[in-house]
């Protein structure tokens, strides 16, 4: 909300208060000042806690001056020369302002014209350029006449965008006075959060300032000079649904003269962000901005006419099925059954609290004005705004809640402003229907509450003083206080919620800064870990240690994007997507089902940037479920491709990631988590090469699938030269299987015997089977079996392969004899020879 400083001063004395400090005080108390826009007042130098904009007027260079005579320019019809006195001396000033032409050639002006005068070097806005651009006034020659100063338009001063003519100042301003002393102002832009809707008006902000600075708040301006006949009988009221329309107030002013509002009124409205229209409409807007009660003005004579010459009856009711109304913005609106209309006996006039209809609006011809101020159910106003896609200043306020008590105050203020600006006579009294009076809210609080909520010892007197400054009525009750909520706010509830509401008010005004920071004294809750998270962190650390980079990706994607992880024509799985009902981008329409697709997208993004791709992510995938909420399943994906070692300038290890490199990563990861006795067997998964895919089983449970990406999948990503390996692992299974602890083994005290054993077997025999049999046969004395070479070639014949193992024999309590080792070896060789058809390689 835009809040002009000059307007605030109508209600609270700001003399001696630094503007920056005021903005800070408001901000800390919950009325965040987003910006201070300076109009001439001095801007602070250096550190500014609040964003500032606008212009300061140099007190020496921008002053009030008087134009004593306007004469013709010798060489230009569209320019005039002014003889001007700046308080010290006379100058000749050249201008093209059209609103000075009428004074040309009149000789000495009596009285002189008071204007804003800018001297050489003054900073002003450039009046001739589109938009607002600052410039410094320089000495120049225009059409042969020396020019070093100027008389200013509103735009040049930064007051408005008006540049049609120069600005005239009141006749009683004194030449030589710094302009900032006469016209200087500033506009605070305040963010109004829902809980301070009551402050979406000048008086509300002034009330907060008064409470925060300890200054007096002037009374709310609700006096109206009503000298006309009693309003009774001029209009009737009929509220059909008091739930939606708890109060409706009407006032009447007769014989107004429609014309522009006084200049200072137009100025204030502009600064507050509203466009001046005419004195009647401006009065409704001014009163709304000032007190927060939106008003609506009807042409009374139109209503009388619609009522067949009789006093009109105003009816408020929900819209009927199929009913329409053409609103002020010239849109014909189809109304919902919850839209509340203001009608007369001839039909609808406006949408209650939101926007008027065209027919009964105030026009140039209006003579008598019926002024409405009402109270509307704010939730219903919100629903209507959403349904009708509308907004207005009135609706902004009504949709956040305006107390019904504000209705007569607003109408009285509006009538008085109309009387002052448009003449006319106000009918005595108001027509006021209030079928559903707002509850009077009372809350009891005590110093114990302040101690419990805020941790501060406050006395009843301190709390009373704070609450009273905000308009609460406070009486003492027992050990504490009984607090009555003032009838301009709707945000305070009863009971324990009310206590919290009041604690917030007390804390805000007492000052958050003044509440001491303490450490929690309450008992520490029972401590327990988060095993799933801890396992994830161990997995992340292990993979990072293996040189693999963690990524975090979008969990929103599209089915088309995810389809790239499967070869074309793959039958869809039976798991439905979790689809968004409202889509903001066509690239984000569903929650992902595949983490592999997410990581492959990142591999693609980096494929042309890096010779080595090693990425992993841990995160959820989402499957729609029969239940209300989808399944969120935790997965790990690792993607590897390109060189295993980054390239340097030296001849480097240029081995590429292959199936076995991926298997190594997975095996090391699982071993590091204490998982042993896992079974690796050929796997099938549509994303992988059918011959280069394995699955990892723990008993009957599938823990992971890994392998080389299917060539057709590979082809659907732009991966450059990289052939990718990928691992997908189910973290839920992992967290069930990973042991909390394991038993360590003692370090042997006796030397091991290490021997090589090379076996020639059929190509089709899986190496895992050979190793398993060696290990089983070797028993406890065989401490290690490790394959160190696989050889194929003529020497051993076609269809055969040689597997070379290093065997480590070890007895825990003594040194093994050669004889013992030889017997063990013989037993192993005999068994693999007999059962697997292996031959000892010579």
């Amino acid at each position, binding site marked *: 909300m835009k809040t002009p400083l000059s307007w605030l001063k109508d209600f609270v004395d700001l003399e001696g208060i630094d503007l920056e400090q005021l903005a800070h005080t408001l901000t800390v108390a919950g009325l965040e000042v987003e910006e201070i826009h300076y109009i001439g007042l001095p801007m602070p130098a250096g550190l500014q806690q609040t964003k500032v904009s606008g212009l300061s007027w140099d007190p020496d260079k921008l002053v009030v001056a008087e134009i004593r005579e306007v004469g013709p320019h010798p060489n230009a019809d569209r320019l005039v020369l002014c003889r001007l006195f700046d308080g010290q001396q006379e100058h000749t000033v050249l201008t093209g302002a059209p609103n000075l032409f009428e004074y040309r050639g009149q000789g000495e002006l009596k009285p002189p014209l008071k204007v804003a005068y800018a001297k050489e070097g003054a900073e002003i806005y450039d009046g001739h350029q589109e938009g607002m651009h600052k410039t410094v006034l320089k000495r120049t020659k225009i059409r042969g006449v020396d020019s070093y100063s100027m008389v200013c338009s509103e735009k040049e001063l930064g007051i408005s965008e008006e540049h049609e003519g120069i600005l005239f100042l009141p006749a009683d301003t004194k030449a030589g006075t710094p302009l900032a002393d006469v016209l200087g102002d500033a506009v605070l832009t305040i963010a109004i959060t829902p809980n301070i809707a009551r402050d979406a008006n000048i008086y509300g902000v002034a009330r907060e300032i008064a409470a925060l600075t300890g200054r007096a708040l002037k009374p709310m301006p609700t006096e109206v000079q009503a000298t006309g006949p009693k309003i009774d009988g001029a209009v009737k009221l009929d509220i059909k649904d008091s739930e939606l329309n708890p109060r409706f107030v009407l006032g009447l002013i007769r014989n107004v003269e429609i014309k522009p509002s006084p200049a200072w009124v137009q100025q204030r409205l502009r600064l507050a962000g509203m466009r001046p229209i005419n004195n009647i409409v401006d009065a409704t807007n001014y009163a709304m901005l000032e007190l927060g009660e939106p008003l609506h003005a009807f042409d009374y004579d139109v209503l009388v006419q619609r009522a067949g010459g009789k006093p009109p009856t105003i009816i408020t009711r929900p819209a009927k099925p199929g009913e329409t109304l053409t609103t002020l913005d010239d849109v014909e609106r189809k109304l919902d059954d919850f839209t509340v209309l203001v009608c007369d006996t001839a039909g609808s006039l406006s949408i209650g609290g939101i926007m008027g209809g065209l027919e009964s609006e105030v026009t140039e011809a209006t003579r008598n004005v019926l002024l409405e101020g009402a109270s509307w159910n704010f939730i219903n106003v919100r629903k209507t705004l959403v349904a009708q896609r509308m907004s207005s200043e009135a609706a902004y306020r009504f949709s956040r809640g305006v107390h019904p008590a504000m209705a007569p105050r607003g109408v009285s203020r509006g009538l008085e402003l109309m009387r002052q600006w448009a003449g006319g006579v106000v009918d005595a009294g108001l027509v006021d229907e209030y079928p559903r009076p707002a509850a009077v809210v009372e809350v009891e609080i005590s110093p114990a509450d302040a101690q419990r909520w805020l941790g501060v010892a406050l006395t009843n007197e301190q709390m009373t003083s704070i609450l009273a400054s905000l308009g609460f009525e406070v009486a003492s009750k027992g050990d504490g206080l009984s607090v009555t909520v003032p009838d301009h706010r709707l945000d305070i509830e009863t009971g324990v919620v009310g206590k919290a509401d009041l604690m917030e008010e007390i804390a805000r005004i007492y000052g958050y800064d003044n509440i001491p920071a303490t450490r929690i004294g309450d008992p520490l*809750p029972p401590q327990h870990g988060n095993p799933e998270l801890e396992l994830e962190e161990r997995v992340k650390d292990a993979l990072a*240690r293996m040189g693999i980079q963690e990524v975090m990706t979008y969990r929103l994607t599209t089915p088309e994007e995810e389809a790239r992880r499967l070869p074309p024509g793959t039958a869809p799985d039976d798991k439905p997507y979790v689809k968004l009902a409202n889509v903001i981008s066509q690239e984000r329409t569903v929650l992902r089902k595949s983490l592999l697709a997410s990581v492959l997208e990142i591999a693609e993004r980096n494929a042309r940037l890096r010779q080595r791709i090693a990425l992993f992510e841990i995160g959820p995938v989402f499957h729609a479920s029969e239940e*209300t909420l989808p399944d969120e399943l935790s997965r790990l994906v690792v993607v590897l491709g390109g060189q295993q070692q980054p390239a340097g300038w030296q001849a480097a290890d240029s081995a590429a990631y292959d199936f076995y490199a991926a298997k190594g990563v997975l095996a090391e990861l699982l071993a590091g988590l204490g998982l042993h006795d896992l079974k690796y067997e050929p796997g099938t998964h549509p994303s992988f090469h059918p011959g280069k895919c394995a699955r990892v089983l723990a008993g009957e449970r599938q823990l992971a699938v890994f392998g080389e990406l299917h060539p057709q999948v590979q082809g659907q990503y732009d991966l450059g030269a990289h052939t990718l390996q990928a691992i997908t692992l189910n973290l839920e299974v992992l967290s069930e299987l990973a042991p909390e602890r394991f038993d360590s083994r003692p370090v042997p005290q006796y030397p091991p015997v290490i021997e090589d054993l090379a076996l020639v077997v059929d190509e089709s025999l899986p190496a895992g089977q050979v190793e398993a049999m060696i290990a089983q046969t070797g028993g406890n004395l065989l401490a290690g079996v490790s394959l160190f070479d696989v050889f194929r070639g003529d020497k051993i014949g076609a269809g055969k392969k040689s597997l070379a193992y290093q065997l480590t024999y070890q007895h825990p309590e003594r040194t093994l004899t050669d004889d013992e080792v030889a017997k063990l070896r013989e037993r192993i060789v005999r068994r693999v020879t007999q059962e697997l058809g292996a031959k000892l390689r010579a």
Partner: protein
Amino acid sequence: MENLQTIREQALAALNAVQDEASLEQWKVAQLGRNAALTQAMKSLGQLSAEERPLAGKQANEVKLALEAAFEEKRAALEGARLRASLSSEKLDVTLPGRPLPLGRLHPITQTLRRINAIFAQMGFQVYRSRDVETDEYNFLLLNFPPNHPAREMQDSFYVEGGDPENPTLLRTHTSAGQIHAMREYAAKDPGNPPPIRIVLPGMCYRFEQVSSRSEVQFTQVEGLAVGENITFGDLKGTLTDFAQRFFNANVRTRFRASHFPFTEPSAEMDVECFVCSGAGCSVCKHSGWLEILGSGMVHPNVLRNGGYDPDTYSGFAFGMGPERLTMLRYRIEDIRYFWRNDMRFLEQF
């Protein structure tokens, strides 16, 4: 015996002329080998009389020891010279780059989340995680956002197709949705006397917003919640100030501003003194000297009640912060979209 003296002088003279290790080996064969003059002389000792023999033997031995010592000295000298020569010739260009090793890194957001979690863990806050897809009830209603309430405007949601129209399914807009789950879970342990709570709730959240350098459709958040019979706004200030001083630096000042969140009352935004300029004003803090860090407040009585904690007995505070914002401030990252784009040129910097 003059013969021995001559052998010695000639041998030492020959050694003096030796310049390299090969010649030294030749000298050793010539002077100390089987056919050397000294060896021959020692062999001929037997021909001497018994009286002459001990003295001559002793002298011959002295000559042998002297030659051996001279040889050893020469050998060490030559070896030293060779080492000096090779050391002075073997010179590396130490400015050539080192051999690159693959360093795996954690995503910067993981790193920030770990820092946050670790600091709060030391204050007794444990990690509680809950789901990404929520109901309106848990994301809004139970957190004191009534239907059509103005506060809902601040959080535009992604809704999920299907679901109950009365209680739509949506992607959580804040990890605060986990507050109710956590409170109810704790309260269920002893409904008559629910235990105190101190948790942080990290997780991914979603908002229906256009993506820009300042806003994303998904973002991480860390919510915090402390509930007990004696928890005050002063404790909120103290705990969060302790956090800021651990996360940023020990001397950083904090500032609390009144604010509004439907699920807390009183509510506060915490700012920290800009750690780039120490409050003097710079482009990072937009010349205000302060950085907005997190939102917080005392848990609203309705939220406590919805979680199974009687607000007449229990109080608590909650807070929420954005790890992306904290990371962006800490490393002066200009564009929030970097985080989920995962360009290696970005990730490799952390």
